[in-house]
């Protein structure tokens, strides 16, 4: 075991990167991505140029979602910019718009073109514009009907957000990123444990030493576990202090479960390291395995929306449960009872994976 630490000293880059790199990444990525979608370039072609149309433009601007670019003067201009991906949407206000609005049987038309090449901003743009247009529509109707505006409170309903009252994006993205970073950190580190020896064919040298294979495994595991947990603590700190995500659940519970999860991924990683013949191979395998897990964690899209088969498969992926646990404890303050199913799954999966990994590794070593 001491030998492993000696190795680490030589290779001190690796744990240093993993430790601080992980936290740094989290910081950087979290900071960049935990923002709502804003400043989407929008091009407006106002063919009406009346106070009404200008008001519409101002209302759109006030949503904060857009950044208005040079106004359009032709369809070609819109097409040109859209093709190049320079704008996310265009709004075309036809001539006579104001007229149609004030006319009693008028039919005001508004055209919106979305840049489908980036569907997420497109949806956001759609949502924002629809909101503005509907509000405007209501206002027009009220005025037309001479209905008492005060009485008509509009179509808003009250919205309460739980666990994430400010709808702070960071609440959503950072725990997921935290879970992912921990997984990758441990996997990479674990996958490299035996890879060097495999690559240089020095595995025999390791085995000649007076340790049992179990001792070797434990010896290699300990630095990984330590680094993993330390990394996790740092990253948790980053999430909490830098992104102001509250940690509502019990800390000991988080760390306890983090430890279990670390063991699970450790088992996977070490199995990979014994299976591959070189560090290069290990890494590529980790990449693929990591991506598979990523798919099932529901990071970007909720698992519930995936086809049933995939949802079932997701239950067998430890990372999936880990993310649920993490989110639950951090954001919802879940107690162990609340997340019991996930914990049980994790423990069971962990035991099975751990058992088979251990057997596989021991067989490979012996």
């Amino acid at each position, binding site marked *: 075991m001491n030998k492993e630490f000696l190795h680490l000293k030589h290779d001190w880059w690796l744990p240093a*990167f993993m430790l601080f*790199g992980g936290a740094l*990444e989290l910081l*950087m*990525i979290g900071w*960049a*991505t935990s*923002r*709502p979608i*804003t*400043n989407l*370039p929008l091009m407006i072609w106002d063919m009406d140029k009346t106070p009404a149309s200008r008001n519409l433009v101002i209302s759109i601007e006030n949503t904060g979602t857009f950044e208005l670019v040079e106004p359009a003067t032709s369809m070609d201009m819109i097409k040109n910019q859209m*093709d*190049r*991906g320079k704008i996310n949407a265009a709004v075309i206000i036809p001539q006579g718009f104001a007229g149609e609005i004030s006319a009693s049987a008028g*039919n*005001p*038309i*508004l*055209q919106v*073109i*979305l840049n*489908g*090449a980036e*569907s*997420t901003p497109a*949806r956001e743009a759609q949502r924002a514009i*629809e909101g503005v*247009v*509907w509000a405007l*529509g209501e206002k*027009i109707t009220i005025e037309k*009907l001479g209905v008492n505006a005060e*009485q008509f*409170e509009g*179509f*808003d*309903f*009250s*919205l*309460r*957000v*739980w666990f*994430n009252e400010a709808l702070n994006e960071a609440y959503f993205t950072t725990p997921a990123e935290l879970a992912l970073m921990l997984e990758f950190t441990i996997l990479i580190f674990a996958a490299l444990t035996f*890879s060097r020896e495999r690559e240089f064919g020095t595995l025999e040298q390791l085995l000649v030493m007076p340790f049992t294979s179990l001792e070797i495994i434990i010896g290699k595991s300990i630095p990984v576990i330590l680094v993993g947990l330390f990394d996790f603590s740092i990253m948790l700190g980053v999430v909490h202090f830098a992104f102001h995500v509250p940690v509502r659940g019990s800390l000991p519970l988080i760390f306890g479960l983090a430890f279990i999860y670390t063991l699970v991924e450790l088992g996977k990683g070490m199995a990979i390291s014994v299976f591959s013949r070189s*560090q*290069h191979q290990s*890494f*590529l395998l980790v990449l*693929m395995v990591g*991506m598979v897990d990523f*798919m099932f964690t529901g*990071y970007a*899209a*909720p698992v*519930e929306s995936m086809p049933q088969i*995939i949802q079932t498969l997701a239950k067998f992926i430890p990372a999936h449960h880990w993310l*649920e646990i993490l989110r*639950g404890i951090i954001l*919802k303050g879940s107690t162990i009872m609340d997340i019991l199913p996930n914990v049980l799954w994790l423990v069971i999966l962990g035991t099975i994976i751990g058992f088979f990994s251990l057997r596989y590794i021991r067989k490979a070593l012996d």
Partner: protein
Amino acid sequence: MSIRHLWAVVRKEIQHILRDRGTFILVLVTPTVVLLLMTYALAVDIEHVSIALLDYDQSPMSRQFIQRITAGDDLDLYTAAGSMEEIEDLLVKGKIKAALIIDPDFSADLLSMRGLALQVVIDGTEPETGGFAVDHIGWRAEIFANQILSSQLRASGLAVESLQPIDLRIRAWYNPSLVPQVDLVPGLLSVVLGFPAFSVALTLAREHEHRTMEQLLATPITRIELLLGKIIPYILAGLLNVLVIPFFAMAWFNVPFHGSFLVFLLLSVIFLFAELSMGMVIGVFMRSQSAALALSFLVVMFPGFFLTGIFFPIASLPELARMESLFLPGTQYAIITRGVFLTGIGLDVLWPYAIMLIFLGLVFTGTAALFFRKKLA
């Protein structure tokens, strides 16, 4: 620069890759496999979001409303709850993502045009689904209220078609149904084609670890020859993926391909050159493969994923991140792939990005050569 030397290194690298079956397959296959996996993972249309209902009104109108809400595939009624405590419990346990609470005055308020007496509670830990629920409940509520109120107003003699006079015509170009896969695949292409960069970062460190570096440095080979010679085989590996992926994109994910394949190929080569030389810069500093791996993973993977405008629009990024994204080859390539696949623009429009990529490639290669000393110490 001697082509002989360059070719000797390229040949040696290729021989090495080919003769290590496992690694060869992995290097070749990883980009495409990961692309497929990730597309499935991320391009998910949200539907069947579980919600719960709490109807305090219990009127014909509220029941009608409830029917409307649950009519489609988007919202799934998990249960009709009996109390707030039940809802709270369900939210905490993650069984529902949102809850709709219909106040006791719902029908009364609506008919007297006082508004919608509704409350929506969402699970803020998943703004995606929560927001989705809000939007969809909102839409349906709007339509419902609109219908009720307009018929109401018509009944009292006013000529009202609907409360929404403005005809909003929305079209989405290039991806009319706003299917996420369609814009995801070209974007992911930019990410996965960066994978050979990891291998490139390793290759110098491997010579150090396997002790062949000293002998190599003693020969008259120049730095550029060595570095380029090591990058080229991986550009080829990347290119093989470039040839295969559009096929999957079109066949499996129905991603259109409107541009010219030749232009796409050419620009992909340039991108690979830029991206892989970025990996090389990292590789020049590291003496051990594991360190090279770790660093290249951190530098290439995550920024390449998040800062290149694929998942988060660059416009929404903070200033600093936007500047950084400018220097990532992935950003330029994402624009290129989107253009070639979806919008069908050609070299006449894309040439500035090509130039930028060439520039980045030269800068990275130059930097790598600068820092790579043909000295052991």
